[in-house]
């Protein structure tokens, strides 16, 4: 009896590993490259890059392809997406993709990642199962380019609240902008984040001033980098992943241990609990380099926002550094929307209101 039980357990343990290995081997990764070697840099233009390097699921370079559409004046991206799908490519990596190429890849069920690295490093990142989960989680939390409304509520220990409403826009991995709609004392203020650069514009007062990720434009427990958050995968990489196992705590979730890619990122480390089925965050502990807890972020009330966007509508945070205080972020009207890059510039900051429809 014991032997049978042991055999069943062994089989149960082996099956997911074999399945994962099979899935991994089946992956075919194409990377937009500036050269024909794996050490080349990733091209900024997915549609018109000089070459595509194709790797198998073990990270072995199997083919270097000249881009047949690099000189096309129009439609290079969508044609390239179809060309790669016909070659059996399941994942495409480039520094940036055009909207039409993204559309074509989606209809071909091709996964894509925007990464800035050497080609081989990018392939290793994508093949790391933890990073794959993180990138998937980013896409589940929000589309690459979208608009949303948020209410921020700072709650004091005596229950007193202070509320702010913002209109926010995001594009790609590094561009976020926000416009305050209320209260009256803050209306018209706007914030912009371009990678690690952040600015605050206060109308009638002055030009946009640089602000830092650790400050907070609204006070409370959320700081500027929480409010103008970029994709997790663009700021952190997965150092360690705890997979679902028999332990009650991990029966239906992953735990990702993330490390900041650079010193300029607001938190040195994150410990992230991820819902295994929905691939959405449940809780994040934000930590210092020495693993001291700065704050905990809880994701609640998963809601269908339409257009296949299903994500937590409420984010709560508390901090041992601000005992008794709590801040809440409520999301509404999350909508896929394409913006010009120029929307995310200092010069455009006073005009953000014109984007509201």
């Amino acid at each position, binding site marked *: 009896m014991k032997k049978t039980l042991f055999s069943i357990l062994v089989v149960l343990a082996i099956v997911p590993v074999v399945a994962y290995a099979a899935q991994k081997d089946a992956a075919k990764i194409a990377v937009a490259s500036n050269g024909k070697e794996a050490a080349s840099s990733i091209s*900024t233009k997915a549609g018109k890059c000089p070459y595509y390097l194709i790797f198998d699921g073990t990270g072995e370079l199997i083919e270097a392809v000249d881009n047949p559409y690099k000189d096309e004046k129009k439609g290079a991206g969508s044609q390239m997406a179809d060309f790669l799908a016909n070659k059996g490519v399941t994942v495409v990596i480039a*520094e*940036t993709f055009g909207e039409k190429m993204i559309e074509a890849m989606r209809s071909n069920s091709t996964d894509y990642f925007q990464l800035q690295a050497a080609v081989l490093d990018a392939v290793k990142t994508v093949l790391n199962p933890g990073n794959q989960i993180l990138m998937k989680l980013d896409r589940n939390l929000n589309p690459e380019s979208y608009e949303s*409304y948020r*209410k921020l*509520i700072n709650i*004091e220990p005596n229950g007193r609240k*202070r509320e702010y*409403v913002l*209109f926010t826009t995001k594009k790609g991995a590094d561009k976020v902008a926000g416009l305050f*709609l*209320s*209260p*009256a*004392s803050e*209306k*018209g203020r706007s914030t912009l984040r*371009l*990678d*690690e*650069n*952040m600015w605050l514009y*206060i*109308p*009638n*007062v*002055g*030009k946009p*001033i*640089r602000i*830092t*990720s*650790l*400050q907070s434009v609204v*006070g409370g427990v959320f700081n500027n980098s929480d409010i103008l958050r970029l994709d997790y995968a663009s700021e952190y990489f997965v150092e360690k992943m705890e997979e679902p196992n028999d332990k009650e705590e991990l029966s239906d979730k992953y735990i990702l241990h993330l490390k900041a890619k650079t*010193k*300029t990122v*607001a938190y040195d480390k994150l410990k992230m609990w991820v819902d295994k089925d929905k691939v959405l965050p449940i809780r994040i502990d934000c930590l210092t380099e020495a693993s001291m807890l700065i704050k905990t972020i809880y994701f609640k009330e998963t809601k269908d926002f339409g257009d296949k966007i299903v994500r937590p509508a*409420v984010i709560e945070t508390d901090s041992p550094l601000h005992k008794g205080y709590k801040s*809440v972020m*409520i999301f*509404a*009207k999350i909508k896929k929307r394409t*913006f*010009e*890059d*120029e*929307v*995310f*510039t*200092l*010069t*455009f900051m006073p*005009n953000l*209101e*014109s984007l*509201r*429809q």
Partner: protein
Amino acid sequence: MRLWAAIGTLLALSYGMALAEEEYSFDLSEIEEKPLHIGGYLEFRSVLFGLDKNSALHKLKLYDRSKKNVREEYNFTSLLDGSYKKGTTEFHAIVNTDFKKSYLGWSEETTLYEGYMSLRPSSTFNFDIGKKTLKWGKGYAWNPVAFLDRPKDPEDPELAREGFVVGSADYIKSFDGPLKTFSFTPVLMPVYDHINDDFGKINRLNFAAKTYFLLYDTDIDFIFFTGGSKTNRYGMDFSRNITSNFEIHGELALIKDYKKRFINSDGTVFNEEYDATNYLLGLRYLTKSDTTYIFEYFHDATGFAESEMQDYFSFIDKGYDTYLSSGDDSLLRKASNAAGGSYNRKDPMRDYLYLRASQKEPFDMLYFTPSLTGIFNIDDESFTIGPELLYTGIKNLELRLKATFLVGNSYSEFGEKQNNSRIEFRVRYYF
């Protein structure tokens, strides 16, 4: 019994749910887009001046007034900010009305701070025409490259200011790579009778432009101005975050053929023409305990040297002595108009330091921000120091209590101001 328990549980649950819902309600009417928007603030500000009866500027400005140790002033201000949007066109206006009661009695002044039309055919291009403030430069207390703006008051740099009538455009382009943003802002500024006639020489159409780059995570602007209402000027500025809590910025301005008028202690007027190079270097630093430091050094080559200011104060003293002995105030009036009022501008001298330290919510005192601001005149070693307390605990209401003390030897800038202390209380309600 079980039924009652079930009903009780259900009621408790629904009450709990209602509470939870109430806690996190987000009423979508709050985000409804309306074409017409009117906002702004109402403000009451009372100021108590501690007068320095022996100072040169007290003698100059109040020589024929009764001698008092203190004077009070009351200001009632409304700032109306309205906009109307239709398609890609937007109209925007800011009107400021001040009612003031001072030792001169009641006065009222209504000023159109801004009033312009914006056309935004795309996010790459936009055009503005009308009266607006351009706010060029990166400095907090001073902006030597803000060639088309009225000067800031370094003691209150965040005050709204009146703009000029301009026609301007923005062309914006974003890129991937080290250069992330480029933008070009050309500006036409007419200076004619009744249009911007306080800017400079009239009957001139001036042209200015600003080119902005976000290059290697650094904001960089190149600016020029030409046209004749003022002499040609060229400028550049930059701003960059060194770490996530440390920012540096700077400005450099070259003013060609600057004409300075100054007087000696006898009241003889001299003219000097030269190219003036003004610059500013500054930083903003946030500590772990939420203290923000702003530090700036400003060199203004158009300003007066220490000896020139001493000559001016000495001339005022002579004029005052003449007035006391003979009742003739002609020398004092000459001093008042000297050099087209340049002596009376904010920061008339050459080298200044600005330091502001503000602490957010110290000792868990919610919504209180105490701060301390100092402006130091390096040339004559006089200074002002101002503690301030800001309270924002009531929605849309801002309370500010600020004191300023002016310290300096005789014939120094802050030592010869007409008041040696000032206490100000301001209540501002936003709507």
